[in-house]
């Protein structure tokens, strides 16, 4: 039994009307004009699809020969239905499983390297190259949103009045700490009238301490230690590092997920989850700056440890020692490290005198018409 077919020989795009017949080893194609018939072995014969028409092509030595065969689908199934399992599978030149495995591992390795080493290194190198004016502008643009998040939707209030005693004390503290520090730009420090224990540095040398940091501190050096730590973030441009890091990460995530609809949403969400904290390394570096600045200012570099440890004992049962300091996770390692860096206890003079400290303590009680 045979069936009429259209045959292309892979050399010229000209149809040849042929008869197709099943033989023991495969398909025999009887060419017109009495030429030698062509034999496709089953293993060489690949089925593209069998519908109304059956479309077949031939693969030899893993190369597509370009030969094509088209026959009536129903008759083809009648003739070859019982031997369909003997036909070859797949296309020519398809990647071997080994090659897929190799490149999968290489890709995963590359992603792991980027995630754990490459991106941080990239951020470290790239952040200082971003013009300072861009960072300042960026800080200005994100500041309102950040403040709103921390003050839970209410308008954010800062403590103290221009020219008031509290502000003067705060400025004195900033001046003593930043004397000789290599700052990228003008520091601006404020106390935020919000009841969580936290402190953060925004892009553009903008530092906020929250009211409880001052309330819970027992001496000015404890506040100064926290402030010096934030100045450390400013000096290292950690918020810009985090931004570069997260930006590059979200680019990579969207490259992996594809430009498919909705993937950018996923990328942004992932980014939010991943990028909420400075890296541990950045925190340690900021601690080092804190110790260094405190020692230069003649103050007690260990004060920040006393502050952290007291808070930990006041607020037990929290997973992180510091309640809202989730963006600055305090660990025993960090406390030990600061202890080591601080070296032998030396005599220290507090950064503020008693009168200034009193003024700073009451800064949030000052009448503040501006808000």
């Amino acid at each position, binding site marked *: 039994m045979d069936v009429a077919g259209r045959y292309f020989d892979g050399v*010229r*795009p000209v149809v040849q009307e042929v008869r197709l017949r099943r033989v023991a080893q495969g398909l025999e194609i009887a060419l017109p004009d009495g030429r030698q018939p062509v034999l496709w072995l089953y293993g060489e014969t690949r089925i593209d699809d069998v519908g109304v028409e059956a*479309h077949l092509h031939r693969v030899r030595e893993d190369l597509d020969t370009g030969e094509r065969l088209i026959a009536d689908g129903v008759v083809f199934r009648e003739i070859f239905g019982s031997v369909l399992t003997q036909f070859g599978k797949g*296309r020519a030149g398809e990647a071997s499983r080994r090659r897929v495995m190799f490149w999968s591992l290489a890709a995963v390795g590359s992603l792991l390297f980027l995630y754990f080493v490459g991106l941080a290194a990239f951020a470290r190198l790239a952040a200082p*190259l971003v013009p300072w004016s861009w960072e300042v502008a960026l800080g200005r643009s994100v500041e309102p949103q950040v403040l709103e998040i921390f003050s839970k939707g209410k308008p954010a209030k800062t403590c103290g009045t221009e020219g008031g005693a509290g502000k003067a004390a705060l400025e004195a503290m900033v001046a003593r700490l930043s004397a000789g520090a290599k700052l990228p730009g003008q520091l601006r420090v404020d106390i935020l009238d919000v009841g969580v224990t936290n402190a953060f540095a925004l892009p553009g040398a903008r530092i906020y301490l929250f009211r409880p940091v001052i309330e819970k501190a027992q001496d000015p050096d404890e506040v100064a230690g926290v402030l010096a730590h934030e100045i450390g973030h400013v000096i290292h441009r950690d918020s810009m590092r985090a931004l570069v890091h997260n930006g590059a990460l979200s680019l990579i995530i969207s490259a992996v997920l594809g430009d498919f*609809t909705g993937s950018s949403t996923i990328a942004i969400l992932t980014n939010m989850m991943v990028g909420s904290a400075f890296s541990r390394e950045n925190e340690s570096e900021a601690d080092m700056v804190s110790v260094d600045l405190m020692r230069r200012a003649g103050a007690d570099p260990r004060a920040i440890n006393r502050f952290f440890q007291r808070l930990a004992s006041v607020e037990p049962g929290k997973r992180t020692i510091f309640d809202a300091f989730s963006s600055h996770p305090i660990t025993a390692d960090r406390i030990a490290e600061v202890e080591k860096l601080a070296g032998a206890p030396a005599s220290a003079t507090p950064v503020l005198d008693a009168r200034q400290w009193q003024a700073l303590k009451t800064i949030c009680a000052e009448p503040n018409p501006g808000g």
Partner: protein
Amino acid sequence: MHVPTIERTRDAAQSPRSAAPQPDGPRLEALSAPLAWHVVKGIALTIITLGIYRFWYRTALRRYYWNNTRLAGDRFEYTGTGKELFIGFLIAIAIVIPIYLIVTLVGLVGGAVFGPVVASILGALIMPAVVQVLSYRARRYRLLRTRYRGLRFHQTGTGIGYLMRTLKWLILTGLTLGIIYPYLRRALERYKIEHTWYGSARGSFSAPVKPMMKMWLLMWGLVVGAMIAGSMVSVAAAMGSGGGFFGALVGLIVSVVLLPIVWQAFRVREFRAFVGGTKIGDISLSSDLRTGSVIWVWISYYLMLTVLLVGGFMLASYLAVGRMGYFDPEDVRDFIAAGHGQVAIVTGIVAVGVASAIVTELFLRRRLWALRARSITVYNLASLDQVLQSAAQETGGVGEAFDSGFDIAG
């Protein structure tokens, strides 16, 4: 360097072909096979696999469009596989992303040396340049995986050569404030077609710019006019004159309604000119694509999208606050503040995204493909018997995988 006037005389010299009476040839056919299932399945699996299935989905779509395009009873064949695209993607992840980070860093360091202006220029230029090179490489991959009657297409030329030509014409276009943009389009199309082969038959290209130029000048005039009118309106508004509202309305109509229509009219003329100017070996083509039908496809597509978005918004708002189409800001704030509200919003965005992706494939891409394919007549098909499969072997190895990984142009 090609100067536009020289190009034009060359057109005139080569134009007799189009003037000569052509014997009738077969049209390309676009079969209307069911596509919806491919799209729904492809998108669903892409989401489930966090994007990995997209290579197989894209391959399935190409196979659909290629296989359902027929010429003289024989279908075009797409022989690429999802696995090839996937391998290319893996290589891109393993090699290209780290290299790209380093290149960016070098650009930034260069910026630190030469100032932020240089850095931003580098940053703004590197990415489009890379995309331009890769899109040419991706075209090579697609042609290598395209067969008709068993014979393969392929592409010579280089991505860098294509990029250089693009740059040259971008500069010329910039210098003429965009007026010679159709020449840029033609120069790029010429590079592509003249490096396109079907077996031993090479592509040649000689399309006139004139039929596109009128529509382009209209487009250009509208944009410039809108810009001038816009500045006049803002001046009038600043002076407190009452014409502001009327001017703004005219501007809105021009930019939202007129510009897209003129743009599509331009693209249709361009398509006809480019198809008509293309020859593969001794086979020539012509297209009688009609502007009206293309614009109707776009309008009905946008209508469908609008219905989808409005419907989705109404449904979402109903589910969210129990009222149709009316929002109390307080309700919305409470809703967003609640955790499940954010989940619902993200789900809603994804759902609308998926729905519009389906609509785009079924009611925009497929329709445009069918219109374009059916508009094309092929002449002198008999000369196919002079074409042979070229000696070039089916290629393999990393180069090929690179092409497929950069198969970004869709």
